[in-house]
Each structure stands twice: as structure tokens, then as C-alpha cells.
């Protein structure tokens, strides 16, 4: 199987979904890299559930302050117009529907948009963090992940076998191989990675994919 995009390129493709003026929350891991790929002329305001709105890139070594971190506990920088608040207020913002986009990681996504991203069955313990609050309230949930497990098993499945984070909550899936929208009619293949064919994507995807009328190669 072709490996498709690197993790950085997945993040770069996800960054293209963010529009000027969007308030955006980035999950731990791959999604936090999205903040490095926002064009200069696009103003995206990043929210983190530990109580900050309006931060910038990851801090350089000489800028690091342990009191200034994102939800992944990475040191960050401030942008003009930032604001601090407590965790209860941070989640009031989330549940209140004020976050436009959340970019999250996943273990599995089902064809109905169910998301499993907090615990793998092989472990007896996982981390919910802010994910369950985000998926019930954010206007658009974008999942970034590897298309398959390390062993090659599909992560896009008919029914999630891992414990759910939320039901019918995912809007868009961006993987190393494809961009797939979750629609009322099922999964819609919209873009394929360079040199990857729709058939190849389908071969590692459990549910049947419909092909978008304008199916095309990802632009990065």
C-alpha cells in the first residue's frame, strides 16, 4: 500500500479547511501541527480548553514559559488579542457552540460519523479530556489520522469497535490517503492523495465510499 501524505502534509491539508475569522480548537497530537500551516492572510483564532483564546505558534526554546501552554501541554506563543480564562469558562465556550471547527485525532470513524478516539480496547484505561465536549458542540469536526492501523486494518469502519467519543459527530476525515466527507447518504470520497487511486482508498476503507462528482487530487 502507498503511504500517501506525511503527518505534516495531513496537517497542512487540514489547515486549508480553516477560514478567516474561524475560532478553532486543535486536539492533542497531529492536530496541534495545523497551527503551523495557516497562511499569513488568514486570521484563525485558536482556542485551547485549558483557558486561552488567541495563541500563535509553538514557542521556540528561548521563549518557553511553563505557564503558557496549549491543551497538549506544549509551550506556545501569544498573539495580539489573546484572552485567558478558567477551564469552566473554556468549556462553556465549547458547549455553548462558539467554536467553529475542532480538528481531532481518531482511532476509528464509522460511516455514520461516529468517533472513537479516547480508548483503545487493548488498554484498560484511556483519556477523555475535552474530546466529548468538543464533538457534541463544535460546528464542524474534522478528523486527521492515518488511514489504517500500523497493521493495515481500516480505521474507517462500518461500526466502531472501540468505545465511542460521540455518535454521528464527524463532518470530515483527512488521512494520509484521502479526504472523505460524512454525509447523510454515507461517506463521500472528495480527494485522493497524489498518486493514490480511489480504488486503493476503497481497498483500505471498510464501508462503501461514494465518489464525489468533482473528485480530485488533494491540493496542498
Amino acid at each position, binding site marked *: 500500500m502507498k503511504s500517501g501524505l506525511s503527518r505534516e502534509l495531513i496537517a497542512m491539508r487540514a489547515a486549508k479547511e480553516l477560514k478567516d475569522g474561524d475560532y478553532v480548537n486543535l486536539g492533542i497530537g497531529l492536530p496541534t501541527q495545523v497551527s503551523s500551516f495557516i497562511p499569513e492572510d488568514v486570521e484563525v483564532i485558536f482556542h485551547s480548553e485549558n483557558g486561552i483564546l488567541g495563541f500563535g505558534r509553538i514557542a521556540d526554546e528561548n521563549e518557553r514559559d511553563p505557564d503558557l501552554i496549549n491543551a497538549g501541554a506544549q509551550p506556545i506563543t501569544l498573539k495580539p488579542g489573546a484572552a485567558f480564562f478558567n477551564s469552566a469558562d473554556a468549556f462553556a465556550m465549547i458547549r455553548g457552540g462558539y467554536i467553529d471547527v475542532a480538528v481531532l485525532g481518531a482511532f476509528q470513524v464509522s460511516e455514520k460519523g461516529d468517533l472513537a478516539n479516547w480508548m483503545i480496547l487493548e488498554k484498560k484505561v484511556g483519556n477523555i479530556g475535552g474530546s466529548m465536549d468538543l464533538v457534541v458542540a463544535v460546528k464542524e469536526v474534522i478528523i486527521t489520522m492515518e488511514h489504517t492501523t500500523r497493521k493495515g486494518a481500516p480505521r474507517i469502519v462500518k461500526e466502531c469497535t472501540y468505545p465511542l467519543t460521540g*455518535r454521528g459527530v464527524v463532518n470530515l476525515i483527512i488521512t494520509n490517503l484521502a479526504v472523505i466527507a460524512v454525509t447523510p447518504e454515507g461517506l463521500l470520497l472528495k480527494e485522493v492523495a497524489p498518486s493514490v487511486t480511489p480504488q486503493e482508498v476503497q481497498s483500505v476503507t471498510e464501508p462503501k465510499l461514494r465518489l464525489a462528482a468533482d473528485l480530485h487530487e488533494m491540493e496542498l
Partner: protein
Amino acid sequence: MDKVVSSAQEAVADVTDGSTIMFGGFGVSGIPFTLIRALRHKGTKNITAIINNAGGRLANIDLAVLVKNRQIKKVIASYPVYPWFVSPFEEQYLKGEVELEIIPQGTFVERIRAGGAGIAGFYTPTGVGTVVENGKEKRSFNGKEYLLELALAADFALIKAHKADKMGNLTYRLTARNFNPVMATAARITIAEVDEVVETGELDPETVITPGIYVNRVVKGEKYEVRFE
């Protein structure tokens, strides 16, 4: 009015075995590490810890200090373990030596807010359709499903702030605010560890985040270095 006590040891002197304790902090920010070490020294057993994360990343200054010393009976958390290493808590949990209640983070902090605000419970959409709804009342409002979640309170809240005046008014630094101001409201006794104690009147009343009414004791914390991996 002077709520300042002279040592962390004195501040935690009445924290008895079996206490339920909230601990502030998120990631490496806003951890009441001097108070945690004082509890380690005191040796309080059978603690139920209400804390976002069960520690281990900063092994010598976070909850792992108490976990390793077998002082923790149960952890109520939203992000208890780490994806990339096995913490002392996870080790004990997998052996069945410590209990865990895992709660979505927004519900976790809203339950604490309710505990401080005299609200018995509230209906939140978070967790509907997941294992979180097990054993909870589910109810529709305007065609959308919600879960009833109950208030969470504690005997003690150990928090970390930036500055305190002698009346216990507190300010915080940057993202070190996190759970600290909320937990301050939800415990019978709130103990604040701070970087600096100032005279009453020195804090601008517009910038006070935790009014002194919520704070029982203030103690100056030790300095510590956080290293990022």
C-alpha cells in the same frame, strides 16, 4: 484579616486520612507542587484526588509524588494517563491498587463549578451515546438529549495562584489559571500556594480572579523548574 500561614506543612496540618481533595493544574501549569510535597511529608492516606490528570509527567512535583507513596485511594479525572508512557498511577491502576472515575473534562469542571455554586446538578449534552451515560438520567430538551450530572465538592482544594493579598484575593499567570479558580469555590477548605504574597490593597480589584472569600489559607510556594521534553 491575614490568611497567610508560614509553611506548607502548617497549611495542610488538618488534612486527615480519607479526605477528598481537589488539586489544580493542567499539564505543567498551575500545579500546587509545594502543597503536594507537604502532603507527602505529612503522609495523609486514602486520599480521593479530584484532578484533571493523575500525574507522572513531572514526576517529582505532581500527583505522582503521592501516588508513588501509596497515599491515593481513588482518582477522579478526565485525562488520567499518558499515551506515551506508563505513569505510576497507570501501573497501580492496572494492578487494581487504585480506583479511577473518568469524566469528560467539560463535565468534570462544570460539576466542580456546580459544587461551588450551590447547584445540585445540571443537564449537559456531553457524553450522550457513550459509556459516560451509563447509570445517568437521560432527558430531552427541545429535541436534543442531555445527561444529568451532579455537583462535585471536596473537603480541601489545593490550588496554585500567582499573587495573593493577605485577605486571600488571588491572581493567576497566563494558562496557569485552568482549574484553580473553579476548584477554589468547591471545597470546605481552600489552600492557595502562590508565587508572591502582597499587602491587602496592592492587587487591582478589577484583576482579582479568585476573591478572598473562597480562600482559607495562603502559603508562599517554593520555586521549581519545569523542563519541556
